[in-house]
């Protein structure tokens, strides 16, 4: 077998796949005329509002655990008073967006893929086309925009709750003074730390909704097809988030 061919074929397939997904995303994001107010609002509720409890709880426990870890780690070189600053920076730059994004991936990418996949296998997508409606505009556009808009807000809420989680542990069991803890959290936090996390959130939102829509649209036949689409959507979203996080961190903080 020709080795060039063995490399070339998968490479071509990957390139073609990336191209197709990019085109899909562009078409999805561009379908805003006429502006789908109601559809976007409904999706904001589904994707943003209903994810608040999961994201909030995740942030709370993460912030608390982070405070404990940094405290015990910091003691090794007599630096345990950096807890508030490191918890704040770690939350807003990294853990808030990444864990928030992953939780939303689990909750939202799966439900989008299952919903659109079911519509695909029950021919509802075909029916949309026969009723002169572009399925991408009707189904994908509102979901992409709702996710892109709501993830930064979720991340911001998660940031605050995460810092509060650290504060809770810091003041109740690590011996910090409440006022000093909050002052220190503030003092070392820069605007760009927060901003970069929010930008990450928006990108992760796009990745989550895009994975769900793409996998759902391409769902195989039957219940098994929808099941596979759902799994792929969550896996793609999670891996995509972690890879994008690495790339963005490199870009923002090199």
């Amino acid at each position, binding site marked *: 077998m020709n080795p060039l061919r063995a490399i070339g074929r998968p490479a071509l397939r990957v390139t073609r796949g990336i191209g197709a997904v990019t085109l899909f995303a562009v078409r999805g994001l561009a379908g805003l005329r006429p502006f789908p107010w109601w559809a976007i609002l409904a999706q904001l509720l589904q994707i943003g509002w209903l994810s608040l409890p999961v994201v909030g709880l995740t942030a709370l426990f993460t912030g608390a655990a982070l405070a404990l870890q940094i405290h015990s780690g910091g003691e090794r070189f007599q630096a345990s008073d950096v807890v508030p600053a490191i918890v704040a920076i770690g939350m807003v730059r990294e853990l808030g967006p990444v864990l928030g994004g992953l939780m939303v991936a689990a909750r939202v990418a799966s439900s989008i893929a299952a919903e659109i996949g079911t519509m695909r296998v*029950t*021919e*509802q997508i*075909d*029916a949309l*086309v026969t*009723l*002169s*409606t572009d399925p991408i505009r009707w189904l994908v556009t509102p979901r992409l925009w709702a996710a892109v808009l709501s993830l930064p807000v979720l991340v911001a809420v998660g940031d605050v709750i995460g810092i509060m989680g650290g504060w809770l542990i810091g003041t109740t069991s690590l011996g910090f003074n409440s006022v000093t803890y909050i002052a220190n959290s503030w003092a070392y936090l820069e605007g760009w730390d927060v901003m970069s996390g929010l930008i990450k959130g928006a990108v992760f939102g796009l990745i989550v909704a895009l994975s769900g829509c793409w996998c759902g649209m391409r769902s195989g036949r039957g219940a098994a097809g929808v099941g596979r689409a759902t799994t792929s959507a969550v896996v793609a979203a999670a891996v995509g988030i972690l890879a994008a996080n690495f790339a963005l961190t490199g870009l923002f903080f090199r």
Partner: protein
Amino acid sequence: MIEVRGLRKAFGQARVLDGVDLRVGQGESLCVIGQSGTGKSVLLKCILGLIQPDEGVILSQGQPLEPYRFMRRFGMLFQGAALFDSLSVWQNVAFRLRQRMSDRAARAIALEKLARVGLDRNVADLMPAELSGGMAKRVGLARAIADDPAVIFFDEPTTGLDPIRARAIDGLIRGIVTETGATAVTITHDMASVRAIGDRVALLQGGRIVHDGPVASMDQAPALAHFLA
């Protein structure tokens, strides 16, 4: 007029359509029959551009058929009804109407179309999940005819209905064709329906059209003997 020439479609190894040629004249009612799994639904979806054929052309008035341009004039009843399950019954029926008129006007037309398929107004606000199979089929039918399309495709309109209802639906389809001059392509397993609605009947078998002739003389066609038995 719609014309299909040399249509071929395979799914993996399975050759489903293997050179289908078919014409439907303006205002004509064509019935397509054939055993289960021979590719009748695939044929309709190829004509509508929902499935990309491997080979062959589909012409409308002699022009290649571009789905999005022609779709406005088309109506389609899917075999499984394919109702949007996030929308209520009347919103399903009025789906296309609501794109160009007020909800109130669209709802009025939807109620009228629902009445034509034998569903009364308290069905209008149900969700598709609350319907029986036959009711869903009739809602799908109402949706297909809601915008008075010039060309209508029916994929097994009477399957799953009781005989009385089935004859009523046959009458409805025949009525639409004669009243509005619409072109209709109906897939069916029900020879009584063929007699009631068809001008012509085509038999799909082994991926090809093996019989194509007027309904009036179908009793003499040897190819159809098996179906008429």
